[in-house]
């Protein structure tokens, strides 16, 4: 093994990277302990040490949770191989998400699981649309049965409307879970038929029938959805031992990142692929924030680490973190301790793992600061700042909370940003405002815009993706209605380079000249295809002398539009590519447009009757942030916070990232309930009787049916359990939020939108507990 340069490793990291040669290893890693770093170095060392045989196409398989993690892993391993070992950067490993891995497995042997080689993977939106269509077409005949779930105290008409609105998500969750549990609709319907008169299962009965129709509809299209992909991959592995063996040979080492988010299916798949041989699982059970209504559970990792259950698993800790100042580490540790020992609802005290580690004389979930000589030590305490925006008896409206964070209080962004203006740009600290849900993020972003504060969104899709798609959409919208002068003007405006747009924005004369120019072409064809082909564009003499570039700019614009109009007969992907070629030169934009084209083409296949207005609508949905669209942008390639620019993100999206200064907003008992009597829950709808959480209930019905034992289902029990599960997950989400901060942390809360009509939200219990702790500690 050749090694060019050595890097400094913490003892725990060194132990894992340099001493691992095989077998099953479980690593519980605290936030900031460098688990991606450690896993990437381990992968690179396994490749470089020759244990992976290139000639037989062997690879280290790395499985992680998100696409962005895939990209950052790849980049990191490539860099280590090249710089540290002087090897080819792209050989010897494969990094995948669970779905990406499943896709590889199915793609290689599609016929094994009943697919043709050109099977389609249905976009999430399309699959929901199919389900919605089935629901709508069947609802009338089922309504009498389903109305049994509505509360008698509410307006039935209104309730029906809301119920209909919520049903698709409910059914989708049911279908997803049934697939995760590998249960066919026929099996469910068979069991239900034996209990025909049991009304407790009406919702499951309805969902099962939609599931059956939905699967038939997929089969008819030769398509699968994302959940099928994982199910089918497992089916392929269990159906052909030799195929499994070939894959086991191909991937002699399986490294699993974010193992706390591992689902039952993922565990099955990796257990099979690793052949129970060389399997390294890394995760932080205390950061499991994707458990609600999924089969992901930190339990899988904890059980793996449990010596009594898995004596052949070796546990290696990653407990040292140099990310944050000590007071923030202390606060995070206190949240864990308080929850485990003092949480007012004893049933949620196991939200965190705080197992004793007798060997090291410590507890597993506690973050340890760095030791001496660590080249990446914790920032000095003098940099630390914690503000917990809670005072007993003091209330804050949602609007005030945003005001306070943006410009109102001494900790506000505006004041603080102006205080760092002196610093050189690249030395400015990084800042994030983290919110529990997207809608809060959008509101905040609005306010930041108002104050002219620079920010980037990490909400549903990124600003860059949306901007590119918006440009494309504006063009398509015009092409769908080529006589619309306003739409054409909009195209001109949207396509203007940003410096030119600033110029126009600041110059009212110029704006008027442009408006006048378009206004004279009420007959739009005279602008684009003048009868006298040589007719010059009518820009007044004075305008031409004041803005000499304008006539050429408009002429060029009109040529572009002509070219696009001529292309509208083309299939939609080709039209999009034609437009894209004229509009974009940045490789990321070009690649994004290519991806949009391929996506729209697959939509056109499913909807042969769609024309430009429908495609424009599709683009509008992407660009207006209603739907996540994975582009080739920051979200894909690993987001890097920019100094001095505010990142607005959900706490979920912030996982894996860190900033110098972090604001956590809306930490109230609505977003972070504590399973106490006065808490309310997002999943419990006002129109449903007995405060049932229908999603939890229908999944419980499914669970009982899947084992063929309907008596296991006890109505209401799942709702109660869902409250506990949710409270636990939100505690972990808060922990994730806190541990994103390197130096400064501000936590605020608000009373909720309905504080005038309903009991207002309270500060979250853990916020109160942490406030009390900091007061006692005097920090």
């Amino acid at each position, binding site marked *: 093994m050749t090694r060019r340069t050595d890097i400094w490793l913490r003892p725990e990291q060194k132990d894992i990277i340099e001493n691992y040669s095989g077998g099953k290893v479980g690593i519980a890693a605290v936030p900031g302990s460098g688990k991606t770093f450690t896993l990437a170095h381990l992968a690179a060392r396994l490749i470089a040490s020759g244990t992976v045989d290139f000639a037989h196409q062997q690879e280290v398989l790395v499985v992680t949770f998100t696409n962005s993690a895939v990209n950052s892993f790849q980049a990191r391993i490539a860099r280590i191989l090249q710089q540290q070992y002087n090897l080819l950067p792209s050989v010897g490993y494969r990094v995948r998400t669970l779905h990406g891995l499943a896709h590889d497995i199915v793609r290689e042997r599609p016929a094994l699981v009943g697919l043709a080689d050109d099977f389609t993977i249905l976009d999430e939106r399309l699959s929901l649309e199919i389900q919605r269509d089935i629901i709508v077409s069947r609802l009338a005949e089922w309504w009498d049965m389903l109305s049994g779930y509505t509360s008698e105290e509410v307006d039935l008409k209104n309730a029906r409307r809301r119920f209909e609105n919520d049903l698709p998500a409910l059914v989708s969750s049911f279908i997803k879970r049934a697939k995760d549990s590998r249960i066919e609709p026929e099996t469910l319907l068979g069991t239900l038929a034996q209990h025909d008169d049991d009304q407790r299962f009406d919702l499951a009965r309805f969902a099962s029938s939609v599931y059956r129709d939905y699967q038939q509809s997929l089969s008819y299209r030769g398509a699968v959805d994302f959940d099928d992909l994982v199910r089918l991959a497992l089916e392929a592995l269990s159906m052909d031992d030799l195929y499994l063996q070939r894959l086991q040979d191909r991937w002699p080492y399986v490294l699993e990142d974010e193992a706390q988010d591992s689902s039952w299916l993922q565990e099955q798949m990796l257990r099979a692929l690793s052949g129970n041989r060389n399997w390294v699982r890394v995760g932080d059970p205390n950061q499991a924030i994707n458990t609600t209504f999924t089969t992901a559970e930190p339990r899988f990792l904890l059980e793996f680490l449990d010596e009594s259950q898995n004596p052949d698993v070796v546990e290696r800790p990653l407990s040292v973190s140099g990310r944050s100042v000590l007071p923030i580490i202390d606060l995070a540790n206190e949240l864990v301790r308080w929850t485990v020992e003092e949480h007012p609802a004893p049933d949620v005290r196991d939200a965190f793992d705080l197992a004793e580690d007798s060997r090291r004389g410590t507890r597993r979930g506690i973050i340890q600061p760095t030791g001496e000589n660590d080249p990446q030590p914790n920032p000095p305490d003098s940099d630390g700042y914690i503000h917990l925006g809670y005072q007993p008896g003091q209330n804050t409206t949602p609007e005030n909370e945003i005001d306070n964070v943006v410009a109102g209080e001494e900790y506000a962004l505006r004041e603080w940003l102006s205080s760092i203006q002196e610093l050189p740009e690249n030395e400015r600290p990084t800042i994030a405002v983290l919110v529990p849900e997207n809608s809060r993020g959008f509101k905040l972003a609005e306010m930041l815009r108002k104050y002219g504060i620079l920010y980037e969104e990490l909400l549903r899709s990124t600003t860059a993706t949306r901007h590119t798609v918006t440009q494309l959409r504006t063009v398509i919208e015009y092409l769908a209605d080529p006589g619309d002068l306003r739409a054409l003007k909009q195209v001109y405006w949207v396509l203007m380079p940003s410096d030119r747009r600033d110029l126009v924005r600041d110059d009212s004369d110029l704006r008027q000249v442009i408006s006048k120019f378009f206004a004279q072409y009420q007959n739009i064809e005279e602008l684009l295809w003048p009868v006298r082909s040589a007719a010059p564009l009518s820009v007044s003499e004075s305008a031409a002398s004041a803005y000499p570039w304008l006539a050429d700019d408009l002429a060029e614009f009109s040529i572009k539009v002509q070219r696009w109009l001529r292309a509208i007969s083309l299939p939609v992907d080709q039209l999009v590519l034609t437009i894209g070629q004229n509009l974009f030169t940045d490789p990321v934009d070009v*690649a994004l447009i290519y991806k949009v084209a391929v996506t729209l083409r697959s939509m056109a296949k499913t909807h042969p009757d769609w024309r430009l207005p429908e495609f424009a609508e599709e683009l509008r949905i992407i660009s207006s942030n209603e739907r996540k669209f994975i582009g080739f942008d920051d979200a894909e390639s690993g987001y890097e916070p920019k100094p001095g620019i505010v990142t607005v993100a959900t706490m979920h999206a912030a996982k894996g990232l860190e900033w110098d200064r972090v604001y956590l907003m809306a930490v109230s008992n609505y977003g972070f309930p504590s399973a106490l009597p006065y808490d309310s829950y997002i999943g419990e709808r006002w129109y449903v009787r007995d405060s049932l959480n229908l999603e939890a209930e229908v999944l419980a019905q499914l669970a009982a049916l899947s084992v063929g034992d309907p008596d296991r289902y006890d109505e209401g029990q799942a709702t109660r359990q869902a409250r506990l599960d949710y409270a636990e997950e939100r505690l972990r989400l808060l922990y994730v939020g806190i541990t994103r901060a390197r130096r400064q942390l501000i936590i605020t809360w608000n009373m909720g939108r309905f504080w005038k009509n309903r009991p207002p939200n309270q500060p979250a219990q853990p916020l109160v507990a942490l406030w009390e702790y900091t007061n006692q500690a005097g920090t």
Partner: protein
Amino acid sequence: MPESWFLEGPAGAGKTTYAIQYCHDLVRNDVSPEAILVMVPQRALGRPYQLAFTGSDWPNGTQIDIVTLGGLARRGLEMFWPLIADKAGFAHPEWEPAFLTIETSQYFMARFVNSAVKTGIFDSINVPPFRIMGQLLDNMSKAAVNGFLLDEVADRLITAWGDRHSSRPSVYRAGVDIAQHFREYCLQNNLLDFSLQIELFMNHLLSEPVYRNFFASRYGHLIADNIEEYFPVADDFIRDVWQELDSALLIYDTDGGYRVFLGADPGGMHVLRNLCDHIEIITETRVISPEAAALVSEFDHLLALNSLPPLLEVNPGEIITIASHKFYPDMIEWVVARIVELIAQGIPPGEIVILAPYLGDSLRFVLMSRLEEAGIAAVSHRPSRAVRDEPAARAALTLLALAHPAWEYHPPAADVADALHQVIDDLDPVRAWLLAQIVYRPGRDELGSFDGIRAGAQERITYRAGEKYERLREWLIRYRSEADEVPPDHFFSRLFGELLSQPGYGFHADFEAGRVVAQLVESARKFRRTLYPDGVDQWDAVTHEYFTLVQDGVLAALHVPSWQQQEEDAVFLAPAYTFLMRNRWVDYQFWLDVGSNQWWERLEQPLTHPYVLARNYPLDQVWTDDLEFRYRRDALRRLLMGLVRRCRKHIFMSITSLGEQGYEQRGPLLHLLQQIVQRYGDVQEAAE
């Protein structure tokens, strides 16, 4: 017993050149050209012979038969139908047979498949009905070209499936039941799909003395080229007629067999050498460089023997350049830039091919338009495409719908505007849109007249365009009065001939659109002739049926073949296998998307199997992953060696880390190249 030769060698050894010379020699020795039968596995492979036998040194007015076995069978059946119709079990031997195309076979198969789909028998596989039809027809063809009974298809598939737990065996059985119903229907109605044509020819016609006499008196000399691409039934045929030949020349490409996944049997065909008096084996190829030969050897060793060959003195890396890109569009830009450079150096475009394992429409379009922008002549292999992807066909169908308001199919206004823009020369898209907004109201019986619209609007649309629109409108109205008398293909041919191809109309100078409409005419004509060979009293319902089938996707595909001559004068863009089956040599090849898994994936379908349904596949063998892996490696080996052997100078390869769909790529070809790079080190890497 003929005097016979078996000529074997790699691509580029000069085998076809030898065969052409052999024909010349025969003719010089007073053999009539008409007595020579040249058999090729695919029409495209007959092109060198067509060119050779039309040259100035060929006797005027004489023709050699260059055929595929399918072509020979069809011709024989057309001529000698009465001889065999009764014996073969046709219900109406006195009627003419109807030869089905893939489209019309699917049409008849549809009724059986659709009703089976409704019973849920195919629910356990995720395949749309039209693909089920295709796979069942494929199974029938496989049975025919291998000489199996249909029952054997199910038996083989079920045995090969093994004891895996699934409902697949019952699905296979159901598939064969449907095929048998379809066959029964064909026998009842004198319909001859491809499988039935082959079976009738081999099992009936070939044993008819009258046909034997005809064949023996017509052909004395057989030249069978590229026999490694033949189906097993061709082996049966050659053996069957062998004794009646005066001479035979069988040509075998050592590393060919590119159609194995379609049922070709190179191993079986190789045994034909035992029939021949003379066996010539050429090992050298005249075309490629030592570096290319070294690369061939690397691929051969790595894939066939799974071992590394001894390091060669010649560096195979010298004929390749590898470039790594992140995104697809980066790759496209790189390819176009290299081609621009080559052309600037004076390389003729025809000496450059761009090859991809799979050529999606988006990739094809972008590459073609980028080359066009760069002013480089390029032609692409055009796969079958949905009618809606052909703007000219879509315009013609919109006009068909407008001509038949009684169908109550109302095209969207955007389609009407698009059709008007395409067919009327002076009508730009904006004016076409404006005109459509005014004259077209979905649900109204006819298009409004130009004279009936406001003067202001007339002026905007222009009188010139208005006049042409008016002629189109009148044509449609006139046609409507006689719609019952006009079959669907006549609508398209008349519309094209009487109007659209005339000066002032859009297809006058647009040859591409003309070819698309010609294919549409052909599709409608075959539909009419097959389904309604005796005509009907009123054609309107037939035309409507045709239109509906196209709209529903049953008659979805239009295959517009590219002209081979065009391919040879321009940069040719094609899937790798398509290029191989052209059997051409070029100076420069570009291999796109080298990381893709598609380089070694076969067309995998759950209801059929090319290897299990092959004659030499053991009847009792389960198809395991080992076999799958071995066959794939072998197919990849043949493909790569075939491509390199057809390159005289240099191969540019592009790796994109993310595929077209955004997935990271880790295909087997990438691994092979990495091994070669590691061994020889100094491969040119053009990292961008």
